[in-house]
């Protein structure tokens, strides 16, 4: 992290270093010429680099979001390559500067300096000697009588030339001329012939010689040679300048050449010495320029190289980023055939495989989702079906654990809370549910695939007659047992109906087979009694027998009538009935019995029933109660609302009902009374059922309470009746 921050500041540091270098390089006024130009070029190059570095540094600092893939790697590569070049370049530069400094120290040695001074002094001495000799020699002829005589009285050219020739030869001069004060050449001699006798115009020294009257010398350069020229005024006795003598000595070419060479060397040496700092600066700047150019070229090459190198990496990184974001339609262009190209190929293959796998995965997911949806839908349908079923359904695992059970089963069997999926059915089927567990074990152990049994299970105070059907379930063929399905139906009503139907059929047959002969028997007996009661002795026995026959026949007829009633009980004609009316009728009917107490009820109480049939039921119940309380005790009749029903309660203070009698008390032809047909309660219960009500025993003793529940008369019933 720290190195990353440092990397962010590196371009700025490099830019700052370059700016410091620029300040150090800034040209001073003492440096001039090419060095200044180089300095400025270097400064411009360094400024360019500094600006680039600062610009990149500022961009790095201001960069908030993630840079383009590969850009940082490219920057690092460029910086590394430039740094790799810069460091040796700087070391080379410093070393070269040191060597240059040492070389300059050696070059500008004191001995060289002294040697050059002496050489120049030698050359100067030679020139000075020549001039001095020339001046001294010419001084001899300033007042030369021959020359003055030649000029005084007309110009004697012959004498003048002769004298000039003598002097030239004597002094060893190369040319000798004589001029009048007006600079007109009068005569002249020279060693090299006549072709150069044309005199030059007087220079300043010549004029000074005339003006000052002194011997003056001058140095003349012509055609690669140098001549020392001397001017001496010719002064007569009146101290007037009458002419000017001009002598010229051509310096030896070798000496001149050597002297000038020494001069040139001296000049160069001194110039270099004066420009020593500039030379060092020039060298430094040249080296720096080369270094900067190398760095720039290297930087450019590094940029190109890094770009070529990082472009595929950047594309790969970008492609990876896109894949990371979920875009699998990525393919990187293959531009090179090296390792990077191979990497790109591998990446493309990987991306393609990934794309195919994801597509396959998506297809599978879609199929699974559809299957899951279907399964959920099926399960939902199954659950709805099961919950809407009145039949109890129990689905068990092969090991006997509950997999599924519906609400109907729970309510049918009034199952305790422990009946939940995952629990073992065998362990749960105890007590009153034991018979179900037995059936389940039989289903598990038997060879047949299905099982059907009828069971009696007590649920609360009721005793249900159930039909249990079991089956084995297989998932694949008949080998893989997947569980057991048990379906339980409450067939109590069905059995009751079947029993009633059976009894009705019996009653019908009895009525048909027995009732018909009874009437002639009774009539015949009564005839016998009327006709032969006076003739038969003893009469008492005869009367007793005939009365007995008649009474038994009548009893049989009533029995047959009850059977007929049971067999042909008509459908009730439902209507609105005031309960008070029923209660009043019962009160009036049983008024002779002081033991019968009819409770007062709400006047507005109504029920939906066939008043004749209900009256019959109430009479039956009250008769039974009176029969049960013959010895002592009271009979109470009351009525009240219970939800949507109207309940008639018949209580008696009799001995109550034994458990054995309770089990069969509503069965036809079951009676605890000696002369009872056993059909009263059966008929009463059938009437209650036909009214969609119920006749039940609320309490079996002290007091014994029979409850007749009938539907309450509602507004809907009223509209239905009107309709």
């Amino acid at each position, binding site marked *: 992290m720290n190195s990353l921050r440092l990397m962010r500041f590196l371009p700025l540091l490099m830019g700052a270093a370059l700016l410091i270098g620029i300040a150090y390089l800034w040209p001073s006024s*003492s440096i001039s010429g090419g060095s200044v130009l180089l300095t400025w070029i270097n400064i411009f190059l360094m400024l360019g680099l500094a600006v680039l570095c600062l610009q990149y540094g500022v961009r790095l600092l201001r960069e908030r979001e993630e840079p383009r893939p590969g850009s940082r790697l490219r920057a690092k590569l460029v910086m590394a390559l430039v740094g790799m070049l810069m460091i040796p370049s700087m070391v080379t530069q410093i070393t070269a500067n040191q060597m240059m400094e040492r070389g300059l120290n050696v070059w500008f040695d004191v001995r060289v300096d002294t040697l050059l001074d002496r050489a120049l002094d030698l050359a100067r001495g030679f020139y000075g000697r020549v001039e001095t000799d020339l001046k001294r020699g010419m001084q001899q002829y300033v007042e030369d009588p021959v020359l003055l005589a030649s000029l005084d009285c007309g110009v004697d050219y012959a004498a003048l030339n002769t004298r000039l020739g003598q002097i030239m030869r004597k002094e060893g001069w190369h040319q000798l001329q004589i001029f009048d004060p007006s600079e007109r050449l009068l005569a002249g001699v020279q060693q090299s012939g006549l072709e150069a006798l044309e005199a030059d115009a007087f220079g300043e020294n010549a004029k000074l010689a005339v003006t000052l009257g002194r011997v003056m010398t001058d140095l003349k350069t012509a055609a690669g040679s140098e001549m020392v020229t001397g001017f001496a005024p010719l002064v007569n006795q009146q101290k007037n300048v009458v002419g000017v003598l001009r002598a010229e000595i051509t310096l030896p070419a070798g000496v001149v050449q050597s002297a000038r060479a020494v001069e040139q060397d001296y*000049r160069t040496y001194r110039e270099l010495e004066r420009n020593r700092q500039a030379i060092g600066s020039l060298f430094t700047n040249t080296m720096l320029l080369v270094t900067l150019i190398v760095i720039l070229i290297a930087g450019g090459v590094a940029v190109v190289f890094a770009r070529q190198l990082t472009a595929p990496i950047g594309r790969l990184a970008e492609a990876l980023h896109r894949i990371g974001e979920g875009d699998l339609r990525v393919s990187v262009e293959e531009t090179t055939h090296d390792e990077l190209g191979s990497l790109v190929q591998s990446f493309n293959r990987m991306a393609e495989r990934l794309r195919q796998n994801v597509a396959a995965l998506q297809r599978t997911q879609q199929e699974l989702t559809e299957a899951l949806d279907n399964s959920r839908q099926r399960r939902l349908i199954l659950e709805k079906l099961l919950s809407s079923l009145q039949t109890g359904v129990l689905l068990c695992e092969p090991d006997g654990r509950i997999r599924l059970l519906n609400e109907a089963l729970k309510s049918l069997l009034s199952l305790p809370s422990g009946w939940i999926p995952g629990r073992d059915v065998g362990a749960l089927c105890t007590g009153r549910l034991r018979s179900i567990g037995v059936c389940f074990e039989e289903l598990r152990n038997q060879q047949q695939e299905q099982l059907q049994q009828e069971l009696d299970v007590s649920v609360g105070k009721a005793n249900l007659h159930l039909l249990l059907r079991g089956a084995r379930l297989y998932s694949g063929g008949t080998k893989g047992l997947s569980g057991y399905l048990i379906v339980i139906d409450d067939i109590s009503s069905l059995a009751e109906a079947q029993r009633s139907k059976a009894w009705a059929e019996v009653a019908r047959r009895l009525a048909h087979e027995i009732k018909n002969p009874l009437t002639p028997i009774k009539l015949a007996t009564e005839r016998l009694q009327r006709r032969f009661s006076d003739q038969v002795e003893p009469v008492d026995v005869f009367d007793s027998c005939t009365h007995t026959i008649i009474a038994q026949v009548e009893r049989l007829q009533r029995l047959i009538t009850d059977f007929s009633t049971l067999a042909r009980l008509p459908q009730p004609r439902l209507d609105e009935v005031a309960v008070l009316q029923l209660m009043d009728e019962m009160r009036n009917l049983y008024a002779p019995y002081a033991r019968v107490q009819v409770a007062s009820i709400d006047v507005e109480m109504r029920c939906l029933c066939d008043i004749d049939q209900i009256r019959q039921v109430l009479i039956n119940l009250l008769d039974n109660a009176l029969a049960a309380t013959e010895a002592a005790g009271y009979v109470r009749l009351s009525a009240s609302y219970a939800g949507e029903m109207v309940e008639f309660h018949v209580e008696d203070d009799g001995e109550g009902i034994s458990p054995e009698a309770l089990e069969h008390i509503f069965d036809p032809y079951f009676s605890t009374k000696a002369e009872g047909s056993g059909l009263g309660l059966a008929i009463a219960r059938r009437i209650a059922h036909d009214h969609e009500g119920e006749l039940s025993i609320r309490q079996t003793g002290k007091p014994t309470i029979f409850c007749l529940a009938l539907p309450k008369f509602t507004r809907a019933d009223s509209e239905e009746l009107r309709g």
Partner: protein
Amino acid sequence: MLRFLFRALPHFALYVLFYGQFLLPAHAAATMQLQVAMQGDVLTCSASPVSLPDGLERALRDGSEISVNWRIIVEIERKYWLNKSVASIELNRRVIPDLVSRSWLLVDQTSGITRRVFALREATDFLTVLQHFPVLDRSLLSAGQAYVVKVAVREREGEVQDSWWRTWFGGENSSASSGFTLP
């Protein structure tokens, strides 16, 4: 294209900021004594640096050629615009030392006149002093008009090379300006 220009504009401004300062003309300090005078009908100027350029005498003594370039400009000064040039005169002088003969050859390159001197002082004066140098004829000037005379001298070793780009590098050694109003 416009997008590129807008993007490149800040960078270009940065470069101009860095490099532009070197292209601006250097403002030379007044390091020269300058007197402008009317001598008859001629405007003359006398100028000399406050001090001799560093190493000038040494260079002449060591045998290096020295050249100077005098530039005299007469302008009408304008407040909100560039000055209007009236005259511009250049004067090139050169001194060639002769170490062997201990003399210096003075060359006025403008007129072609040469002179050999044997005193270093004469050589330095030749290079660095303008004495009553005639600049303009009075007829070229307007009465009551304010003028500015600018004089600048540039010195270098060796012969003066009149390259246009040489003025970019190295400032003037000395310069001065003086105003006057023709009565």
